[in-house]
Structure formats: structure tokens, C-alpha cells
């Protein structure tokens, strides 16, 4: 659709603006600088899941040569906040302080050392003596919900979201459209199942890393690998009791985030230490710390109760989510909210009930991870659709086709839920879902008989539908500044945060499109709180749709300024001037190259063509995906080989085909791990058993199956050049598609993922014994 619109930049595989410097291994990431006198910080972590930190004796550590500072809770003012990098006021409980008075999980912060070298810092950690008062720990979700005699948080949440002081509830949601209980009684068939979702970790290859220093103006500079520079500055200002003007956050290139960097994980510590010591301080997580003390996708237990009529019409649908946020509740309300809100509208039954109990436990912390609750919900719902179809004796594709959301449909759950408070109703103004299903079925060979490659193997196919959002309606916003240079190039400064997904390139394409110049003439700067305008950051699939809208507006303003200048000299109306092919063309054959236009504006008209624009949308148009898996199962060993994954995705106008495909392919690989082998394992005491890549497996090149990625273009009327989001929706469907395929192959369902060989084997064995 878009290609026919004759766009020169949008819709084309332009060179990713940062690709070459990354492929040359240039020094562009947070850690690729050194500063004189820089200290390295290391964190002393609690060996107890729940223990009051009574006293910390740091004297021996401080006495060690090369140690500059050691801090614990007595040294740092306790100001309640959330580390979630969300818009103010954050819809996450204020249950966190920089240095806690009690450790709430095995790995919680107890003390932090800053020393000349990492080796000295590590040695110093061993010299710190901590007096703990060990408390009973709760590591089980159900126990956490029931018990009030042991509280993970004893202080009340000033925001009233968490149940601190009264219960272990971190977030509770109970929203209903219609009346599910009453409707279920009228249904021909009610199917109830329980699904279990694992704790998984984002595993960006660049660990959390921050460097902070105090500059010559006595300002705090924080160079950090983050998705949310502006939120970070605001949170730091509050908890350090500084003003935002005294803090500058610089985001260099980021080696992946996937939501795990939508959180202040280390920045507060380097800031405190830099302010105390007056020296630059660096803190980099080890991989073990990533897997213990960063953030996880929330583990959940989801109960689906669905009522249908004999013809497959869905009448009532209930999703009850039980979730473990761990020791702190950042993103507890909103991730769990998304589990229903982004997922249940796929089948807009007249009666929908969405219930969440998200509890604090003494387990490590859950938080944001690409998909943000939707992968869990999608797994439950799309597994459940197959179960309903099986019970109905109906084809599983047909059941989906009968009930899925369509163009013009309203999604009432979004209005009820919003971002932690009442939100905005969502109307589907563009959808390529039907086309995605058709093309996806074709690519996977749906309905064709598929023979296993050996007699002892079983073969099966499965599918899942998914939808997500494009930013948070009425909340997410961003701004962009466009400035023309002498040679006809422009600087594009955005607060939008490229973390590797390629948003700098997408935004440059929008800018180039509006100004009629090649994308390589757009010099992108992202993001620096001193130099770029505000943006909420890289999360919620918002950048293309929301920040892109700001870039389009800013570029149009600059174009209008130029037309104004040229119109006065060419004696024509501004509207008569066309900007294309790096030229401005007016009536009567008048023409100037963009460089000439720039020189004219700067040296004759003496104006700086430049504009800043902000953009917010009250809509969050859903991108859609239909995803399919073809698998082979070895029933004797439980091994599953995924032969092919097909993803047909509607992300509106495709701004950059290769980058969009890359989003899909990367999401599929992450979801493959979710389906089959990724799981952070805890023992009963809340200790992580596999904090390394040896035992926490993420997909390697040999694990990923052949992928077919189909981009079904639609034209979203509210999006910049018709674009919607692409980053999150493709991570939702592969896990249920794979598990549905396994069930298709062997007739046994995995209600719990990852579907490891042992789980598949056990399922088959138990089914045979029954």
C-alpha cells in the first residue's frame, strides 16, 4: 500500500544510520569511555530472602587501600519511589528506597563499594560485616496472598496501589464488561483451564552499565544504557533532592534493552557515589547480576474460563491472573493490566471479566520485558482457544475466525483499564488480521497433511493470533527538533531512545520524507536530556507511532518556514512550493537545491530554519499478528524440533522493511526460548539456580528455525504515514503456536512452559498411564 504512495524515504531499506559504526566496533557504548580517577562500584547482595539489615560494619572495607567509599542504608536518605521508568505520576507503588533497611530477596542491595579497581571493590565486599535479623520469607504466590503476618513491605504505599503495611498485594485489578457469571450459565459449553508462565529474563547482551560524574559546573552527569533518559532524570532529581537542571542524562548507543532498561537499575547508585566521592563512578552488572538482580517477565498463573455456544460464538470470557512481582512492585499494576488489556480484546465477547492478583514475594524482581504482560496473556488465551475448539469439536482456525476483532470494532476493556487508571476506548481503524491469517495459513501449509521426517516422530502445526498497542493512549508523548544546516542537511534531535531497534533510522526516514531529502542528510541525535527535547522513551511500542508523529510535525514546520522564505523572494504562495529530490521547486520553473535554500535562509533571509514539535495520541492502534508453527516431536524423549515459524504481521505502513522484519525475527527467537527452554529457576528459598548463560539458555543460531516473515501492510489513519508499531506484537504468538503444534502432534497439551523435553515427555507419559 505505502510503496504505491510514491514515498522516497518511508518504505525503503535505507542504510541504518548507526550500522557502520557499530559494525566497525567503534567506541560508542556507555562503557567505551574512560575518565580520569574513575572508580568501579560493586554491590554487596543479601544472602537472605528476607532479613532486616541491622548494622553494617564497613570499617575493614574502608581501610583497604584503593577503596574510596562504602555506602549502606545509614548513609543514604530513604525517599520512597519506584524504579519503574514510567510517566509521572508512575502507576507503580512507591515501595523502594536507594539502600533498603531490609533485604527482600536473595540478591537485594545491602552495601555498595566504590574502589580504584573492580578487584579491590570485590575484595572490599568480602570485608564488610553485616548483622542481619533474619525474617520468615514468603516465596510462594498463594502463600503471599493469604498471609498478612509476614509482609514483604511493612510501609504503606503513598500512591495506594500496593497493599504495603496491610497485605502482600502489589496490584489488584477487577474489571468487567457485561456479566460473565450470568452469561456463563447461558452457554452451551464452558471450558476452564489453568496455564503457567515462567520467569524469563531479557538477556540483552550488553549488561546494565552506568557511569556518573560531577562536571566542572558541579552538575551530575549520568552516562547510561537506558531506555528512559528523561524519566530517569526526573526520578534521580527526586531521590537525590536535586533539581532536574543539575542533572544531565546521556544515552549513548545501547546494546539492547527489551524493557529491562525501562527501569533505574544502577543509575541511582553511581549517582550517589559520584556525588559523595567527587570522582567518576562506573557500575556494570555481571551476567549473574543480570539474572538475579535485574528484572524478569512476571511469572504468572492464568485461569481462563470461557463460555461458548455450539456454533462457536464466544459469549463470555474470564481471565484470572495470579502474578509474582517479587520483592518490589515496579510495573506490577501495568504489566498485569496489559496481560488482559492487550490480549482479551482479540475476541470481543459481550461479557469479559479480567481479574488480577499480583503479589509481593521474597523472590527477585519482575518488571518490564518486551510484550509487557501480553506474551503471558496471549499464551493462555491462544492455548485456550485450541482447548475450546477441541471441546466443541470445531476447527480451531474456524473458531478464531468466527470471534476475532474486526475493523470498526471497539475494544471496551481498554477504556476500563487504561494505564493503571481509566483509559480511552479503542476503535480498530486499520486491521490486516484477516489477510495475515490467509497469508500465514498459506505459508505454513495449514490443513495440508504433513509427514514426520522419521517414523518415530510426530508432526503438528499450531497457530496463534496476537494484538498489541502503539504507545499508551493519552499518556505517551514525544518531541522532536529539526534544524537545517548550510549544506541542506538537517539535525534531528529526539528524546526517543534508540536501543538497537533502529528508531533513529525510522525517525530520520520520516524527517527526510517530509523535507524531500535523502535519509543520509538527516543527522540524528538521541538522546541527551541537555540536547534533545523530551520523550517518554523506548517502551510500549511507542517510538514509530508517537515519536514519529512528532518528527513529522517538526519537519513539516521547517518545510513551511522554508516555503515562507522562498515564497517571499519567488513572489509566490508558500503552498505552491514543492520540496522533493533535494530541491525546492516553485511556479514558473523556479528551483533551488536544498543547499541553496539553506544558504539563502541563513545568509540572505537570516533565519535559522528550525522547529520543535510535540506529539501525543489519544489512540493506541493495535498492530496484529497471525503466527504459525510447524513442529516435530519425539514422543519417547519429549524433544521438540520447530521446523518453521511463520509470522504474518500488520504494523500499518512498513517504514523500513528490513528493520520491521528484524523486529519480528528477533521477537520470534526470544519467544522460541520462552516456549521451549528459557526459565530462571528458583529454589524454595528464592535463590536463583541458573544465573548464567550455561544454564539459562537463550536461542543460538542453531536453535532458531527457518522463519517466514510476512508484512501485511495497512494504512493506519492516526499514524505517521500510516504506521503502527512492530516491536512487541510478534513476541506474543510463537509460544502458544508452538505449544498448540506440540499438542496437535502428540495430543497432549503443555499447560506450563517452557515445554522442555522432560515436560513434554512427562505429559505424554501421564496421558498414556491414564
Amino acid at each position, binding site marked *: 500500500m505505502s510503496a504505491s504512495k510514491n514515498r522516497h524515504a518511508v518504505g525503503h531499506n535505507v542504510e541504518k544510520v548507526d550500522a557502520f559504526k557499530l559494525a566497525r566496533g567503534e567506541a560508542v557504548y556507555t562503557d567505551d569511555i574512560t575518565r580520569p580517577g574513575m572508580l568501579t562500584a560493586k554491590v554487596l547482595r543479601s544472602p537472605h530472602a528476607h532479613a532486616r539489615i541491622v548494622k553494617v560494619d564497613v570499617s575493614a572495607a574502608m581501610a583497604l587501600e584503593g577503596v574510596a567509599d562504602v555506602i549502606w542504608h545509614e548513609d543514604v536518605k530513604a525517599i520512597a519511589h519506584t524504579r519503574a521508568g514510567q510517566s509521572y505520576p508512575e502507576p507503580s507503588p512507591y515501595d523502594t528506597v536507594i539502600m533498603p533497611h531490609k533485604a527482600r530477596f536473595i540478591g537485594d542491595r545491602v552495601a555498595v563499594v566504590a574502589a580504584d579497581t573492580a578487584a579491590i571493590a570485590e575484595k572490599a565486599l568480602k570485608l564488610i560485616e553485616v548483622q542481619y535479623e533474619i525474617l520468615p520469607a514468603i516465596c510462594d504466590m498463594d502463600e503471599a496472598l493469604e498471609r498478612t503476618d509476614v509482609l514483604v513491605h511493612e510501609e504503606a504505599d503513598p500512591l495506594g496501589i500496593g497493599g504495603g503495611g496491610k497485605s502482600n498485594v502489589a496490584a489488584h485489578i477487577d474489571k468487567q464488561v457485561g456479566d460473565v457469571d450470568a452469561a456463563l450459565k447461558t452457554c452451551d459449553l464452558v471450558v476452564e483451564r489453568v496455564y503457567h508462565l515462567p520467569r524469563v529474563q531479557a538477556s540483552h547482551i550488553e549488561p546494565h552499565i552506568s557511569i556518573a560524574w560531577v562536571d566542572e559546573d558541579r552538575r551530575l552527569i549520568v552516562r547510561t544504557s537506558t531506555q528512559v533518559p528523561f524519566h530517569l532524570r526526573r526520578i534521580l532529581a527526586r531521590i537525590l533532592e536535586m533539581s532536574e537542571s543539575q542533572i544531565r542524562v546521556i544515552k549513548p548507543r545501547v546494546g539492547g534493552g527489551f524493557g529491562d532498561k525501562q527501569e533505574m537499575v544502577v543509575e541511582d547508585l553511581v549517582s550517589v557515589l559520584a556525588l559523595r566521592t567527587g570522582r567518576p563512578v562506573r557500575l556494570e552488572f555481571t551476567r549473574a547480576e543480570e539474572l538475579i538482580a535485574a528484572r524478569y517477565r512476571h511469572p504468572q498463573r492464568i485461569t481462563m474460563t470461557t463460555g461458548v455456544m455450539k456454533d462457536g460464538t464466544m459469549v463470555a470470557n474470564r481471565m484470572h491472573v495470579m502474578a509474582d512481582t517479587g520483592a518490589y512492585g515496579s510495573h506490577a499494576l501495568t504489566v498485569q493490566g496489559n496481560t488482559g488489556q492487550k490480549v482479551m480484546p482479540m475476541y470481543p465477547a459481550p461479557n469479559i471479566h479480567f481479574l488480577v492478583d499480583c503479589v509481593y514475594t521474597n523472590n527477585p524482581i519482575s518488571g518490564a520485558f518486551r510484550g509487557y504482560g501480553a506474551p503471558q496473556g496471549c499464551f493462555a488465551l491462544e492455548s485456550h482457544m485450541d482447548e475450546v475448539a477441541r471441546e466443541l469439536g470445531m476447527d480451531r482456525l474456524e473458531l478464531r475466525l468466527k470471534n476475532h476483532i474486526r475493523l470498526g470494532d471497539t475494544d471496551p476493556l481498554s477504556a476500563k483499564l487504561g494505564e493503571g487508571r481509566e483509559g480511552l476506548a479503542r476503535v480498530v481503524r486499520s486491521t490486516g488480521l484477516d489477510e495475515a491469517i490467509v497469508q500465514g495459513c498459506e505459508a505454513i501449509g495449514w490443513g495440508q497433511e504433513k509427514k514426520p521426517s522419521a517414523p518415530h516422530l510426530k508432526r503438528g502445526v499450531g497457530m496463534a493470533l496476537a494484538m498489541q498497542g502503539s504507545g499508551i493512549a493519552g499518556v505517551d508523548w514525544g518531541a522532536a527538533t529539526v534544524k537545517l544546516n548550510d549544506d541542506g542537511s538537517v539535525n534531528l534531535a529526539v528524546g526517543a531512545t534508540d536501543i538497537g531497534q533502529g528508531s533513529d533510522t525510522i525517525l530520520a526516514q520520516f524527517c527526510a520524507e517530509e523535507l524531500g531529502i535523502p535519509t543520509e542528510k538527516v543527522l540524528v541525535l538521541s538522546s541527551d536530556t541537555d540536547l534533545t527535547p523530551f520523550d517518554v522513551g523506548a517502551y510500549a511500542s511507542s517510538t514509530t507511532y508517537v515519536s514519529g508523529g512528532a518528527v513529522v510535525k517538526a519537519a513539516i514546520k521547517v518545510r513551511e518556514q522554508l516555503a515562507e522564505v522562498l515564497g517571499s523572494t519567488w513572489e509566490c504562495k508558500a503552498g505552491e512550493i514543492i520540496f522533493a529530490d533535494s530541491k525546492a521547486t516553485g511556479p514558473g520553473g523556479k528551483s533551488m537545491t536544498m543547499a541553496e535554500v539553506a544558504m539563502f535562509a541563513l545568509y540572505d533571509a537570516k533565519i535559522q530554519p528550525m522547529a520543535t514539535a510535540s506529539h501525543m495520541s489519544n489512540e493506541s492502534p493495535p498492530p496484529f499478528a497471525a503466527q504459525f508453527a510447524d513442529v516435530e516431536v519425539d514422543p519417547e524423549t519429549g524433544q521438540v524440533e520447530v521446523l518453521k515459524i511463520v509470522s504474518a504481521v500488520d504494523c500499518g505502513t512498513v517504514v523500513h522493511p528490513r528493520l520491521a522484519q528484524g523486529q519480528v525475527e528477533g521477537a520470534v527467537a526470544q519467544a522460541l526460548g520462552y516456549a521451549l527452554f528459557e526459565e530462571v529457576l528458583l529454589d524454595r528459598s528464592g535463590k536463583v539456580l541458573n544465573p548464567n548463560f550455561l544454564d539459562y*539458555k537463550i536461542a543460538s543460531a542453531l536453535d532458531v528455525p527457518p522463519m517466514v516473515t510476512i508484512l501485511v501492510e495497512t494504512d493506519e489513519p492516526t499514524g505517521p504515514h500510516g504506521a503502527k508499531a512492530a516491536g512487541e506484537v510478534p513476541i506474543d504468538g510463537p509460544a502458544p503456536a508452538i505449544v498448540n503444534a506440540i499438542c496437535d502432534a502428540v495430543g497432549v497439551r503443555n499447560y506450563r512452559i517452557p515445554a522442555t523435553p522432560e515436560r513434554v*515427555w512427562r505429559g505424554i507419559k501421564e496421558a498414556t498411564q491414564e
Partner: protein
Amino acid sequence: MWELKEYRFAATAQEAGALRRQGPGKGAYIAGGTDMYLQPVDCDFVVDINNAGLSDIARTPAGDLFLGAATTLHNIATNPLVADFAEGMLIQAASHCGNRPVRSTATVGGNLCHALPSADMAPVLLALDATCYIADEESQESVPLADFFVSPRVTVLDDRLLVGLALPAEAATRRCASYKLTRSAEDISLVQVVVALGVENGKIETARIALGAVAPVPMRAVLAEAQLVGQSVADISLDLVADAAAIAAGECEPRDDHRASAEYRRDMVRVLTRRQIMKALHDETTITKDSGGTVA
């Protein structure tokens, strides 16, 4: 951070022993070092044996295969002298051990001396009757690999150096099959099974069934092996093979850990042993696609 006071280089095996004994403090040998950086060994100094002449692969005129202890897994995986030994089993094992960059430095000796129950090279070497050559400054000793492992992370070495391994020419013609069961493509093994059968005049004369990750140390299922000896390759019954596999499952001593349960491991020994015996017998009809079966 690995805190070492000193890193020494040995030019010969004898010098290695001398440098280690010299002190002061506790010393350890280092070759590839890939495992040593995962869990730094508590020692004051290390003696590097990478240039001590222990990296050779050779075939004797009689056909025995000799692997220097410091031979890298990558060298084994690509060496033509190894390729036609026991149907390329060593190549298969070496090329499924760790990832490509790890194999550049990790050595066969290191894999064995680390003595993990899941040591990837151990089952194949057990199945091919490897002998360990152990030395210190004064003495040399040879020990069958089957007697090399004492308990997890403990071998018979003490302070002595594993110099190399010898595989008898007789093992070169065994019919072999192996399988490494993992959670993802590149992973530590949950269960490893290697079967090597010496066949003469249509009869199984020697049988070796070696198992990894299902006992405190890599082991042989000797009772199961005994079932196979004397059987005719042409007439062997599926039931007998299944019985042998079940016996192997009974012989192993797996335990529960976060990677797999003992119950699962034991059943996988049964399934995979049955399959590997059939595959080693070149029975194409009853088998089994095997993702570990390609030779790199």
C-alpha cells in the same frame, strides 16, 4: 577476577611438574583455561602447559591413536587422523563440546581433568577404551580412563599431570553411535550415550556402552554390555536390545538437579541406549533421526 600471583610457562611435561612443585604456595596446571575462569581455582600460581609438547595427535604404526592432553577440541574435531577412527566418533563428540570459540582453546585433557559428570569427551573415550598417561617428574603411570574418575571434580591425579590418552587400534574399527541430549542446541548434556561395538565374523565380540551425566562420574554400563557380547549382528532381536537398554538404565545412578530429574535421565538412558545400539548395528529401519549424527 581471578587472583593469581604468578603465571608460569612450561616447555616440557617434566618442566611443568618442576614448576608446579617449586612453589611457593599452591599451584595448578592450566591449558585452555575455559573452565578455570568460570570457577577460579583457589591457587597461588598456574603452570601453562599449552607449549609443553602435549598438543599432538598421532597414529602409531600399529594403529593406536594418541591424543596429547593439551590437544584442543577444535583440533580433534578437524584432524584427519581422528576422522576415520571409530566412525568419526571422536570428531562428533569434540564438535558438540561447547561452542566454536571455546573449542579453540578448551582441551581434551582439561575436559577430563575437570571431572564433571557431564564431561563431554568422557563417554566416547570410555567406549573406545582410552588409557590415560599420567606423569610427574619421577614416574609415569598409565591408568584406564574407567579408573581415572574418582568423584565429581576429583580424579586420581592429585598433583600429577595428565600427559595424554591412547586409544587401542582395536577400537578403531568398532561400530559406533552416540547421542547427547540437551535442552537447546549448544548445551551441557542432560544425558549422553555412546555405544561402540567390536564386530567380528558377524558377531559382537566387544561391546561398550558409556554414559555421561547420569552418575557421579562418567561410567560404563557393563551389565548391559555383557548382554550384547556374543550376539549375531544379523539375528539380534529388538527385544534383546531393549533389554540391554533397560539394564543400562538400571545401572546408571542419575540424580535430580535443576537441569533434569533422575527419573527422566534414567528413562532417557533406556531410550537412547536402545537407539544407539541399533544405530551402531547399522540398522536403518528402526532408527531415528539423530541431531547429533552429523559429522562436522
